[in-house]
């Protein structure tokens, strides 16, 4: 599904990813753990196409296609989805308007017909019910005045609606209480399956109790330094990141 080869990335002359290699197989849930400053969020932004970063070397192949040559919107249409650590508030843009515009833009880019309004409403309401999202929230401006948990649920709603094939979850557990963590995790788990892979970025093992990964990678100094099964997360929880900690926090 996703193959990253020798990825070297810097921002303002500050090298963050140093020849990172990573493979995520079809249908796989891969977790990335690592200390602060190891480059986890940078990796998520570079996969999604944020322009602030300078890619000096390497490739990111999604089903064999190098996404580095594509703009962020083209990557989204190709199936890349980033659930933001801090979803942004957009005053004046209604949530429903936003969802419909995104869905139809992606469909258009893929040469598909736009979804009719009744079909769209049905899809949104179905996804909102599963995530226990109040319909009133859908009428408000996107993320404006939403709590941290509501914003994260809204990210998962977008994921459910857009049906991407490669999802990056950037510290989706941060700012969530126990109930919100359960709801969000159930939302993610419901989307697991063949044809869709996940890269779950987290500091803590607790998220991985809910979204059980197939594989765990440890990241440090802009590289994957260790790979193991789900038990690796438990080991890290017990031993901490001291072994991997970088002095060059980015």
């Amino acid at each position, binding site marked *: 599904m996703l193959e990253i080869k020798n990825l070297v990335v810097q921002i303002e002359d500050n090298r963050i990813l140093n020849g990172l290699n990573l493979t995520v197989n079809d249908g796989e849930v891969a977790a990335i753990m690592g200390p602060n400053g190891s480059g986890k969020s940078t990796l998520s932004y570079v996969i999604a196409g944020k322009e602030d970063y300078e890619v000096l070397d390497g490739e990111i192949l999604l089903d064999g296609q190098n996404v580095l040559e594509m703009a962020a919107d083209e990557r989204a249409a190709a199936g890349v989805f980033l659930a933001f650590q801090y979803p942004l508030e957009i005053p004046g843009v209604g949530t429903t308007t*936003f969802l419909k515009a995104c869905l139809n833009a992606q469909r258009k880019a893929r040469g598909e017909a736009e979804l009719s309004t009744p079909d769209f409403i049905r899809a949104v309401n179905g996804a909102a019910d599963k995530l226990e999202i109040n319909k009133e929230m859908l009428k408000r401006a996107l993320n404006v005045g939403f709590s941290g948990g509501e914003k994260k649920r809204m990210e998962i709603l977008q994921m459910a609606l857009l049906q991407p094939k490669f999802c990056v979850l950037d510290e989706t557990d941060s700012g969530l209480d126990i109930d919100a963590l359960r709801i969000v995790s159930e939302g993610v788990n419901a989307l697991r399956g063949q044809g869709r892979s996940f890269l779950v970025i987290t500091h803590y093992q607790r998220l991985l109790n809910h979204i059980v990964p197939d594989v765990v990678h440890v990241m440090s100094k802009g590289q994957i330094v260790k790979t193991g099964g789900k038990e690796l997360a438990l080991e890290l929880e017990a031993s901490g990141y001291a072994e991997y900690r970088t002095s060059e926090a980015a």
Partner: protein
Amino acid sequence: MADVTNLRSPAEAGLSKLFETARQSFASETTIAREEAFRFFEATGLPSRRVEAFKYTDLRAAIAEAAPPAEAPSLDAAKAAVAQAKGFSGLEAARLTFVNGHLIRELSDLDKIPAGVTILPLNDALSQGDTALTQLAPVPQARENPVYQLNTAFLADGAVIRVAPGAKPEQPIHLRFVGTGNTPFSTATRVLVQIGEDAAFSLLESHEGPNGLTCQPNDALDVVVGPKAVFRHTRLNIEGDAAIALSTLSLKVEAEGQVETVNLVTGAVLSRHQIYVHVAGEGTNVVVNGAAMLRRGQLADSTLLADHAAVGGVGREQFKWIIDGDATGVFQGKIIVRQAAQQTDGKMKSDCLLLTDEGQMMNKPELEIFADDVACGHGATCGAPDEDLLFYLMARGLPRATAESLLVQAFVGEAVEAVTHEGARAALIGEIEAWLKARG
């Protein structure tokens, strides 16, 4: 030291000549203090950047030649021009149609005016010596403004609109101003609106003309909002790209009066909309919003003076600017709170989104407060579209141009949301969308 006499510009000399000619036709009419107004104007001349109030909108430089007052068009020419008019065209309203600044009775709904409202063409009001004319120029400071005084001096047509006490007509009145022709001309119209106690009245105003038409409209709207009365006003400037459009709104608001006025500008090479608010009675609520979307060398100026002279007035002024190409936006906003106007609550804001490096925004907010128990504030922001927001939208599949349009629409929309009349609000949003679509 030798005496220094400012040389008059060709346009100023031209205006003097034109006034000499025009005064012949006004000789018999004495209600309008034209002579006084023109003498005032002559003393100041066309204001240049050396005049503080016109520092960023130099009319002396912009108006190279004085365009002659427009003749009344033929009915056929007026019909052809109105057939092209788009502003608020789909809305149910009683229309007063002005073509080149002349009221065209045949194209107006003078026989379909809603109950509780009476409309008298200005020329009839002048010939009858209508008592309402004593209410002209309801805000003293406007009489010190050369643009407003020029309007008074050359005043050619307009209307007097009276709304009876307690009347709440559902249908708005639409003042439809359309320009047409091949040669340069100027216009000077004045509409006086008197809203009786506890009445509620909605007014739509659109200004438009074809691209390339060099016209200099100077329109004034005088409004007296009676006690507990409500005035809702939605204005649309979609003038052609060669128009120099000057306008003045003077509002006197009596006790517990409510005002909502929203102006959207996308037209004219240069426009200046002057708003004078005189809060004369206690417990008023005044919302003054404006939005301008400008491109290719356009300049739009919104100049506001809110003068609070009575207790407990609430004022909310919000202006939004979208500057594309090498366009310039100018906002000058001043709130005066007189000593008697305790518990005034005023907030004024001007926000600008610069879409290019070449665009300019001039913000000049001022507060002059003489009362000690007030809550007044102002703010001004200016910046490029937020890259993080753009990335968020693009990461969900929206192409950059679509993402930027969505952000621009949301930004401007905040000023337009204040329009209560659903159809008028939709018309402004439609104009915003059309502007964005044309931008591509």
